[in-house]
């Protein structure tokens, strides 16, 4: 039997004249059918939160000085961190693909006097930006430029 939904889900403000059976969630929720991707999408929130905190840690280490920085960077060599970052990379790509497919239709028909470009163009632009910025960032961080 499907999970129980909130007992007040889709309820009326005043009770009906007969007893009703309580609402149940969609049977495929949370791990079957298309809900699996949805639940995973929400779960990537944890990955992003941790990534943000780790970047914060690095920023603070960088501000603190060479020892703090080297220690922080060295800690990333631990297998647990490597596994996390591998998972994080997959998660970030998954989020990007899902979000970019939704983004074009989420644009309002007009922003002031301007109409947004057609959906395929928006998508192409998003992916171009993604690949371009990623490549630039890799080049800069890995020492190729600057």
């Amino acid at each position, binding site marked *: 039997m499907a999970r129980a939904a909130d007992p007040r889900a889709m309820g009326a403000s005043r009770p009906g004249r007969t007893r009703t059976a309580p609402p149940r969630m969609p049977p495929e929720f949370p791990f079957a059918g298309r809900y699996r991707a949805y639940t995973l999408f929400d779960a990537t929130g944890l990955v*992003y939160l*941790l990534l943000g905190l780790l*970047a*914060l840690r690095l920023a603070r280490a960088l501000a603190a000085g060479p020892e703090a920085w080297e220690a922080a960077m060295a800690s990333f060599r631990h297998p647990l961190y490597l596994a996390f970052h591998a998972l994080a990379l997959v998660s970030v790509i998954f989020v990007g693909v899902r*979000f970019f497919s939704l983004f074009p239709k989420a644009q309002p028909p007009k922003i002031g006097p301007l109409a947004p470009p057609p959906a395929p163009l928006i998508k192409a632009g998003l992916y171009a930006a*993604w690949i371009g910025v990623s490549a630039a960032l890799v080049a800069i961080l890995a020492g190729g430029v600057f």
Partner: protein
Amino acid sequence: MKRLLLRLEPIIWLLFGQGILIGTILLTGWVLVVGLLVPLGVVPAEALGYERAHRLGANPIGRLVLLAIAALPLWKGAHHLRSLAIDFGGAHRDALVASALYGIAAVGSLLAIAAVLSL
């Protein structure tokens, strides 16, 4: 608390949206290099040795990028974890969970601003 959260929703959603958009675009390269290529030795460690890292980070654009990578994902994370909590029947404690999660994101963002300013 619930009313306050409702009133702040637009701005929280904006930050969350940028966390996904800008955060994802920046995080891909970042995680690849900082999380994998450098620790694995594929990229030599000197590339992100303190000298160079500090030079990049203290650059005005570098500061902004570092701030974006540290702060924006926190809002995406907080918002999605809040959704997850609600999805699994947590509507009644939503005010508490949301405050805690957005609180972490807010504090983290402030610390990130402070760190980036002191580079």
